[in-house]
């Protein structure tokens, strides 16, 4: 019975849906997190009677064929890269990107990863690093005796040092953008890698054309909207339940068929 397999595809799809929603809810408070959405498509159709088939030699055409669908499949899990709200923290090493772009992060392997999480710190050598201690590219070193750090919206990093009236420029932040941001490969720890689907990284300074601006003292909250996630969870649970009803019905019908008198 096709209905049993069709219902199974429906249940599997809703299970994936719940997994994606639970990951969104779990990361509600993750800096720079972008919510994901499971996307579904209908599966292949079996043509029992082709649409437009001729039903007689006189050229009569079947008005609507008999097409039986095989259920649902998950097309993709799509990342929605809308802006998260900017939250003020007052920490002078917290940076949020308002607009397009990713920070470039050097992984211990030497590869470049990309991140929207701007909750930075300095390591023992005074270098600007992520929460996991990975270096920001291009590397920026804050002098030990710096009393204040100012990062402008266009990414210029200035420090004030004792005995000097004018702030000294110690570096320039850079951002990377992609044609298809949703196509980046997530590797955890708020990091993404370039992929064939994302296109090549285009780097540039903040606040230039196509790049967002930097906001010092802010972090970008996740763009997860708890209310819509919870309603999506309810819908997913009910859809799962309804598909299980199909399984029950198909099972009862098979039992009826099996109990038909044979003699």
């Amino acid at each position, binding site marked *: *019975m*096709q*209905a049993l397999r*069709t*219902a199974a595809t*429906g249940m599997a*799809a809703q299970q994936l849906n719940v997994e994606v929603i639970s990951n969104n809810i779990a990361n509600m408070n993750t800096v720079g997190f972008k919510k994901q*959405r499971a*996307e*579904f*498509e*209908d599966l*292949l*159709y079996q*043509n029992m*009677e*082709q*649409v*437009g088939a001729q039903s007689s030699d006189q050229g009569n*055409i079947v*008005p*609507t*064929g*008999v*097409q*039986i*669908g095989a259920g*649902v499949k998950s*097309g*993709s899990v*799509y990342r*929605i890269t*809308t802006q998260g709200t900017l939250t003020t923290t007052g920490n002078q090493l917290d940076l949020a990107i308002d607009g*397009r772009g990713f920070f470039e992060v050097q992984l211990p392997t030497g590869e470049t990863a990309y991140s929207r999480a701007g909750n930075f710190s300095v390591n023992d050598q005074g270098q600007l690093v992520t929460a996991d201690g990975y270096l920001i590219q291009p590397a920026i070193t804050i002098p030990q005796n710096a009393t204040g750090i100012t990062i402008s919206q266009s990414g210029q990093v200035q420090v004030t040092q004792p005995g000097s009236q004018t702030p000294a420029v110690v570096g320039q932040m850079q951002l990377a*953008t992609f*044609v*298809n941001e*949703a*196509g980046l490969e997530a590797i955890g720890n708020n990091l993404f890698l370039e992929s064939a*689907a*994302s*296109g*090549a990284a*285009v780097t540039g300074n903040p606040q230039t054309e*196509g790049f967002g601006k930097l906001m010092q003292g802010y972090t970008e909250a996740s763009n997860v909207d708890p209310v819509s996630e919870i309603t999506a969870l309810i*819908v*997913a649970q*009910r*859809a799962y339940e*309804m598909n299980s*009803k*199909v399984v029950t*019905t198909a099972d*009862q*019908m098979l039992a*009826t*068929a099996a109990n*038909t*008198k044979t*003699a």
Partner: protein
Amino acid sequence: MDNAIYVGLSRQIVLQRALDIAANNLANTDTTGYKFEELMTNPEPVTTARTVGISSPVVFVVDAGVARDFTQGSMLQTGGPLDVAIAGRGFFQVSTSGGMRFTRDGRFKLDPAGKLVTQDGDAVQGEGGDIVLDPKKGPVTISPSGIVSQNGERVAKLSVVDFPDLSVLSKDGNNSYANPTGVVPLPATSATLQQGMLEGSNVRPVTQITRLIQINRAYDAMANMINGAADLSKSAVQRLGSTNP
């Protein structure tokens, strides 16, 4: 005599197919742009084996086709800049390797070259062919009439077409419809586009669940009838065959 069993069987076969269709509807309650289907049946009168003297027409049930309900699905707000819903009649045109396809699923994306594509990576058609966007040029706006612009500058116009007779369309999977008879689509007149929205599936779960119950009960009833007919012929054989009635 056996006609009753065969008529019952024809109904049971149709009911199984109806269940397959209801199962597909329920599996797709969460599929963007999905349109629910219902099996249509026809009475099929046949000439019976024994018609001498009496007219006892026997009518089988056969499936005649699948009716597709194209009513508008509910609109869901997503806020995605490349999510587009069609309100009213119409389909987006998508160019695939298998030819032109039509869809109401407006979950579009950009490919690495900036081309507007569907979930499966097939190019969404504008009135002048593929639509290529430059994300650097700023946010994308899509007007209700389908004009795609960036920074107030017109880039393309989404092609939205309609068919006077929707029954020519054949479902092709991946939320798309094929046009096997080659009818030329017309530009949609009543459709308006809504950016940041998606059209949900138009499956009404309550109807489908009651349909399941109905199918189940009808199947049961047919099984009872078949059992009754079998009992009848059994006792007939016993009584008529008995040498000492």
